[in-house]
């Protein structure tokens, strides 16, 4: 298949089945450095499962999953993959509810992850400035001392995006980031992700078509675990198969 060198994420012929049901079927996807890829597709297409495979939550039955053109992700566990520089925002926003917004970011901030490093960690002025900057970016500065549980759904999404920023990953996997957001928040999120994609690779899964249009990136449509169509949003949404299987419904 295509050349692996110079890719940030490389999936080739990946399959996984759950009790005989093929959730991912010979899926092949490539993302380059500093590139954004939007993934669309009907419910149950396997978008989230694809992210599970990349982040080590699910092991593929078959196929190749490479990070940075060389690291085989199928051999590593979740923590090791995260530490390689792959960050993930979950479809259902998952933040640490019983802790403050600030503490959520302290934990996410890119630092040595060992037990003793965490025990002896003390916050430097730089770290504090960085977290403040992130809070400002995700507009949660005035909520920094609130428990994450008390945030609105949209704000939790923002906090999780903030945690992604704090992790400073090379590759971001963002699953349905704008669910529960107002229109203006959605526009802001698109701006933010585009800004991030200037220096990192970003994979965004989303059903909101106007948001995907705002992203202005390459688009891949998945259905039944494999690629249905690829190209610009206009090309993909003009594709008769995509219309029949996804957009037309």
């Amino acid at each position, binding site marked *: 298949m295509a050349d692996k060198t110079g890719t940030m994420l490389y999936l080739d012929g990946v399959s996984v089945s759950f009790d005989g049901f093929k959730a991912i079927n010979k899926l092949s996807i490539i993302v380059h450095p500093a590139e954004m890829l939007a993934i669309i597709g009907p419910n149950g297409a396997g978008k989230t499962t694809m992210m599970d495979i990349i*982040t080590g*939550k699910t092991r593929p039955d078959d196929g190749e999953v490479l990070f940075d053109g060389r690291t085989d992700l199928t051999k590593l*566990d*979740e*923590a090791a993959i*995260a*530490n390689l520089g792959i960050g*993930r925002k*979950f479809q259902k926003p*998952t933040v*640490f*509810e*019983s*802790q403050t917004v600030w*503490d959520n970011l*302290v*934990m*996410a901030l890119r630092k040595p*992850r*060992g*037990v003793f490093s*965490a*025990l*002896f*960690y*003390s916050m430097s002025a730089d770290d504090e400035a960085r977290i403040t900057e992130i809070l400002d970016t995700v507009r949660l500065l005035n909520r920094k001392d609130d428990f994450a549980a008390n945030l609105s759904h949209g704000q939790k999404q923002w906090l999780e995006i903030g*945690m992604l920023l704090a*992790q400073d990953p090379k590759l971001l996997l963002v699953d349905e980031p704008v669910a529960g957001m107002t229109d203006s928040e959605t526009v802001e999120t698109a701006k933010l992700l585009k800004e991030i994609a200037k220096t990192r690779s970003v994979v965004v899964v989303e059903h909101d078509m106007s948001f995907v249009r705002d992203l202005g990136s390459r688009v891949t449509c998945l259905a039944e675990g494999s690629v249905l169509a690829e190209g610009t949003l206009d090309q993909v949404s003009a594709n008769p198969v995509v219309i029949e299987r996804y957009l037309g419904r």
Partner: protein
Amino acid sequence: MITQLILRALDKKAIWLVAVLAVIAIGVPVLNLVVPEGNPLHIPNYAVPLFGKYLNYAMLALALDLVWGYCGILSLGHAAFFALGAYAMGMYLMRQIGARGVYANPTLPDFMVFLNYKELPWFWNGFDMWWFAFAMVLIVPGLLAFVFGFLAFRSRVTGVYLSIITQAMTYALLLAFFRNDLGFGGNNGLTDFKDILGVNVQAATTRAALFAASAFALALAVVICSAIVNSKLGKVMVAVRDAESRTRFLGYRVDNVKLFAFVVSAVLAGIAGALYAPQVGIINPSEFEPGNSIEVVIWTAVGGRGTIVGPIIGAIVVNLTKSIFTSGSSYIAAGLVILIFSGIVAVASGWTKGLIVIAASIAIPVLYGLYQLALYGSFKLPALSDVWLYALGGLFIFTTLFLPKGIVGLIAQWRTMTTKREQHDRNAPSPADVEAGVDPQPNPAE
């Protein structure tokens, strides 16, 4: 690095707690030794090791809370670590007896002579030296916790399954320690202690010193636990408790975090056990009884898990209650305790729930009586000591249902209620805020 850790540990609550423990550590021995008998402030000799025992239990509960309250690991085998620490200390105390035993054997403890041992089993070597024995107090529980935790957490055993295997662990140890050929005195355990560090274990001064040591050990445990929970590692532990898999995706090795907490906790439990053995004067396999570990969970839940002071309060309150129920007190005393508890429940979560507690407390002895009536033809109330286990179970059930955050949660609830009322009364920044130069916070409009 270390100083920073300790500074962080000593937040306002921890300082208070350590100060109170220091006062107790000095105060109780003084009231026992210096204040003459007959003075109302005098603490009788029997009470000193009793209070000391409560402090050891409190330390055990705090150790459990570190893994359960903060890290979400519900260990139902924590009394095993406590008992192992106690056995290590017991072995030292046995070897201090020397030739003063009934059989006057200079090296072999009485039970070994009785069981026809020809020589000391290899693992008893070294326990005649205090430093070796004290090191074993830390190493044995720590090592068991390390091996057990390594295997369990690596294979991602969590939740109920983990709780069950911790029960199995303590049960297996119970069975093993019951055996005479294991070399720990079988079901009689280790007893008849004479000396500790060259002084008589029974002497009032030694008892007072052991009490003070228990209080200081608890204070040390408070500092250690609060250093851990106030660090970033403490936040990660809570993250593991609340959303284990999410924590992995941030790059933390959840199994290592749990292993660290588990080992530290086991070592603290072991120290508590080591201080317990000389104060109660005996250590036997019943300390491994699965029920003991469950009791520790109840103390912690009643006091308030996920807090430092909660398990300490819980252990002391529940054990005081236990002594009211089990040491020949009257139904009236027990009834008063139940009334107080139901009153607390009523205040905290409504009078109907308070009534449920009272109803249950009356129903159980009455049902027992009716059962006796059916069996033997005479209505007979149960002995209070037989009721204790039901009372303990009821306490646990009603606490989890009606006071989920325990006694400490109740105090916090009461405090926010009063501060809210104050804010409502004044609706102005408090003088402290003005002094500190804090801008009055506008009410969030959204």
